[in-house]
């Protein structure tokens, strides 16, 4: 797998340099330079939202720092959690005096480091935690707390971010973030792998005519692997799996994210979206603010994920509130 890079060890830092150079609203900060924060800093009196995760998923995570979204983001090496120092820095830099929500995906390394960071700062800053766990393919429903966080986390960013901008307190922001996560379901399908810079091999192998349903954004094994099928069949299965896990209290409005994993052309995402919209319509659901594009990637992986965020009026309003980062503007 060919990469436009210099040395593997430079990959993350040079990408962050480029990201911040091209987007002056984002600034590198923190002891290891592994925090991205808003250029204008945190507004006093606002609850802060700090996220973080491994590199290799742009625009996630760092790209969602901005007004109405994240305040700070710690970032690790490719597919590795952010180190504890960066997590501490991200929390500190997000602190406007009213506490900080730690909002990130449910992965072991990320969790350990954000936990440690919170413990180390516990005398200084009040923190809460909400973990993204939207990937329905990563654990059965009865163990949903064990599920991995994937593309659907951007709904929690948007909804909690908008809530924090209104002046809500930490408990309120935490509650709405938790509600957004609890209302979001994602499933992905992969067509081809990616490769960690410096690794001699791709994260997995897959035949020229095969796809894998339910694969994670780091290439974690999915539910089944089989021959490529027509896009409509794939969309149908994904929608059906998502709807089968709709939250008990789901209303009739839903936002949809058809997300490209990195190497899948927009044309194909729109072909999928077309069918997804049709199927949701048939199920009596009304689509609100659909998103189609590369929002959460796995470097050069080909494939797509579909996320549904079941909305109530409160979340709907927050999703529609103004927000602005380099990759998403409402």
């Amino acid at each position, binding site marked *: 797998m060919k990469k436009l890079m210099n040395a593997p060890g430079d990959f993350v830092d040079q990408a962050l340099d480029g990201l911040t150079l091209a987007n002056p609203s984002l600034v590198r900060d923190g002891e290891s330079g592994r925090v991205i924060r808003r250029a204008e800093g945190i507004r006093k009196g606002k609850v802060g939202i700090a996220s973080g995760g491994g590199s290799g998923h742009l625009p996630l995570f760092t790209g969602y720092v901005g007004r109405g979204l994240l305040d700070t983001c710690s970032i690790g090496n490719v597919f*590795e959690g952010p180190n504890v120092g960066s997590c501490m820095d991200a929390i500190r830099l997000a602190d406007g005096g009213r506490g900080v929500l730690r909002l990130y995906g449910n992965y072991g390394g990320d969790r*350990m*480091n954000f936990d440690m960071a919170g413990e180390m700062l516990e005398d200084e800053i009040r923190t809460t935690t909400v973990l993204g766990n939207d990937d329905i393919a990563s654990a059965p429903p009865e163990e949903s707390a064990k599920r991995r966080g994937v593309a659907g986390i951007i709904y929690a960013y948007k909804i909690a971010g908008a809530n924090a901008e209104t002046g809500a307190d930490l408990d309120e922001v935490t509650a709405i973030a938790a509600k957004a996560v609890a209302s979001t379901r994602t499933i992905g399908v992969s067509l081809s792998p990616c490769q960690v810079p410096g690794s001699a091999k791709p994260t997995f192998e897959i035949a020229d005519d095969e796809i894998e349903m339910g694969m994670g954004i780091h290439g974690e094994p999915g539910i089944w692997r089989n021959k490529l099928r027509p896009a409509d069949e794939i969309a149908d299965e994904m929608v059906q799996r998502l709807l089968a896990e709709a939250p008990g209290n789901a209303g009739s409005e839903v936002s949809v994210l058809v997300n490209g994993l990195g190497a899948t052309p927009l044309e194909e995402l729109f072909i999928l979206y077309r069918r997804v919209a049709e199927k949701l319509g048939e199920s009596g659901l009304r689509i609100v603010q659909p998103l189609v594009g590369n929002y959460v990637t796995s470097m050069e992986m080909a494939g797509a994920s579909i996320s549904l965020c079941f909305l109530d009026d409160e979340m709907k309003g927050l999703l529609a509130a103004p927000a602005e980062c380099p990759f998403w503007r409402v």
Partner: protein
Amino acid sequence: MSTFDIQDVKRTVAMAATAMTVLEQELNAADAKLGDGDTGGMLARVIGALDNASLPDGGDVGAGFSAYAKAAAMATGSSLGTLLATALMTFARETKGRAEVPVAELGDLLAKARDAMMARGGANLGDKTILDALDAVAKAISGIDSAQEARSKAVAASGEALDQFRQKPNKVGRARMFADATIGMDDPGMLAFARLCAAVAGPGAQ
């Protein structure tokens, strides 16, 4: 009574760093089967960082481990790397202010590290993680005074743990969902631990 000092630790780290150049891709491949394929690259980098860390003067073993713990924590936020930092922090706490540590205490140190890692990561023994290999070694070398003997017991115990767990399902980490599919595969963290035990024990032990 045989003991080790911080120079012994430093030599061991250097041997591990050398070993990683050979092990890196094997461990990546093992991780790729269950997870995200980065165990080897991550460990190579983290152990390389330890090898390059400058140790405080004075020969305090605890201070040395503390420097290693910080270097590890700076270098990664991966599960295994963070657990390694946790273990090093435990060693630091337990050996603070001492210039020499009895070999016979090593088993206890590993057991304390294992408990700290369990507390931090939330996994249990039997989940088929590095913890199971660590636990086996901690028990096997508990109270043994001879460095030579401790080394060969460690190699044997970690290898046996690997063999015993191969046919069991992984219960934590990225391999959670389809635990059954992990039967027959080595856990990358256990594999790393066993391989590194063998590497640092040197050709004498086995």
